[in-house]
């Protein structure tokens, strides 16, 4: 069945050139261990270094500051636990926000069980953290601040640069979860003033199951996985080279094509938002400007999100209701509650995330189905006052 994919925040399709690079690698080498001392090892090392350079360029880092991981969640676990353990003697206080992804909030909850203390920053109605709140929350024993770059449910981009400045002045390590943003908007780790930054290949048309952690030189951090000396002693275990080849290619494409991609995504987003404005009682979530270019979160009053999502899927339109990692939860999204939506409204939320291969025609098609779906479900709803 032909379908329309508007769920890029859950994972992007493989770019054809990324696929080509991965197939080429399988055919030409495919199994060499980069830690081997013979020719196959040398070839693998070269491949690895090329990819590392491309990923470093994407965020204006040095290649030796890039550690390849199994994806965004591992990178985040590594950053948070790695600093918490390395700095445990200095203090056990960590600052975060109340709209973080589960890989941050649940990692912190685990640390709390081990005696760490966590202060959680609120956000405003757009989902923005106030840097002065962060400054006020800093204590003598604060060792780490972890605030996401762009929110994966509402798209809002946080003032990372300013928070980073504060962290630097106070000599506190600063991590940002840039999984949703990296490869989709320009990132410069020096402008952002971050020490650690997590990213995932599958958010910018690379393969799933591979990511990276940026670790600024001299940052005190322990590895998450112990063993061999791979990845500059920060991540033991033979690298997932095939995935890394894909990630490197995806990073170089993202860097080269970013202005065109952003322009295209913004065009799709604006077009969709204009159409959405014609339906009654819809609330668009997130910041109107400081937001990811391809993502639209909106709450449809009087109906529930999952029923809309399934009905759209029936007609071949793939969207989501919330973070894919939280889809097992039946409660309203913590992000939507944090920005002040009431429970019924939060439950009626859909997430449309467009990608570089989507078209205006696809939006036209999907919108007709969306309108029908909302009308159909509102007609069933006890909350909808029939007009």
């Amino acid at each position: 069945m032909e379908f329309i994919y508007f769920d890029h925040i859950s994972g992007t399709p493989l770019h054809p050139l990324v696929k080509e690079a991965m197939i080429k690698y399988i055919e030409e080498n495919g199994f060499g261990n980069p830690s081997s001392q013979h020719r196959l090892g040398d070839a693998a090392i070269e491949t690895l270094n090329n990819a590392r350079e491309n990923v470093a360029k994407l965020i204006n880092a040095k290649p030796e500051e890039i550690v390849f991981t199994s994806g965004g969640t591992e990178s985040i676990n590594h950053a948070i636990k790695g600093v918490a353990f390395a700095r445990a003697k200095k203090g056990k206080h960590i600052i975060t926000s109340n709209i973080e992804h589960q890989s941050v909030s649940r990692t912190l909850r685990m640390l709390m069980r081990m005696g760490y203390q966590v202060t959680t920053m609120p956000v405003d109605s757009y989902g923005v953290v106030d840097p002065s709140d962060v400054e006020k929350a800093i204590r003598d024993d604060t060792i780490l601040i972890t605030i996401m770059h762009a929110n994966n449910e509402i798209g809002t981009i946080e003032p990372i640069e300013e928070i980073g400045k504060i962290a630097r002045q106070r000599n506190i390590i600063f991590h940002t979860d840039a999984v949703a943003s990296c490869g989709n908007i320009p990132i410069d780790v020096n402008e952002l003033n971050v020490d650690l930054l997590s990213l995932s290949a599958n958010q910018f048309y690379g393969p799933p199951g591979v990511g990276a952690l940026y670790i600024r030189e001299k940052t005190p951090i322990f590895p998450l996985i112990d063993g061999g000396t791979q990845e500059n002693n920060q991540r033991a275990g033979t690298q997932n080279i095939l995935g890394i080849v894909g990630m490197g290619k995806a990073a170089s494409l993202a860097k080269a094509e970013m202005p065109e991609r952003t322009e295209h995504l913004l065009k799709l987003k604006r077009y969709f938002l204009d159409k959405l404005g014609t339906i009654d009682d819809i609330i668009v979530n997130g910041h109107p400007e400081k937001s990811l270019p391809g993502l639209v979160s909106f709450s449809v009053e009087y109906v529930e999100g999952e029923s809309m999502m399934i009905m759209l899927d029936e007609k071949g339109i793939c969207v989501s209701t919330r973070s894919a990692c939280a889809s097992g939860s039946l409660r309203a999204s913590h992000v939507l509650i944090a920005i002040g939506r009431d429970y019924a409204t939060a439950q009626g939320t859909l997430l449309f995330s467009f990608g570089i291969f989507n078209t205006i025609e696809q939006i036209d098609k999907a919108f007709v189905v969306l309108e029908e779906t909302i009308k159909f479900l509102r007609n069933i709803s006890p909350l909808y006052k029939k007009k």
Partner: protein
Amino acid sequence: MQYSDIVMEHFRSPKNVGRIENPDGIGEVGNPVCGDMMTITIKVKDERIEDIKFETFGCGAAIAVSSMVTEMAKGKTLEEALKITNKSVAEQLGGLPKNKLHCSNLGADALHKAIMDYYAKKEGKGKEPKKFEKEEYIGEREGKCHCPYCDTELPESAHYCKKCGKPISIK
């Protein structure tokens, strides 16, 4: 999504949608915190459910359950309708995913509540409504959240079910 074909059919084209004007009984259950709300209205003639309609705010399973429970109750005597349980609704639907079983509770609850409302209205104020065995009448769950896996009642703030340990909210 692991919904059965029957669930999808009832979700796609639900039966008995709407609200009966001047109903003989009305049953409202659920709350938006848990994600589902259901209203069932009935018309009763000679102690038999002559007409029944529903309105539901909820997931695909909740809508399918509402449609199925109204189909099952239509034309039945009140005594027979009270014997419809959440389990029989789920069975008729060809099963529900584990974390959606609570939706079937909602359906039977709303139906039983509508019938109880009918009895209460009929017997008038001051009189005790007809008593039922606990298994038959389970309409007391309104406004409370239950574990979707084992149906234990939960406080609103719970992240985990205290009985079966399954996560309720991911935050």
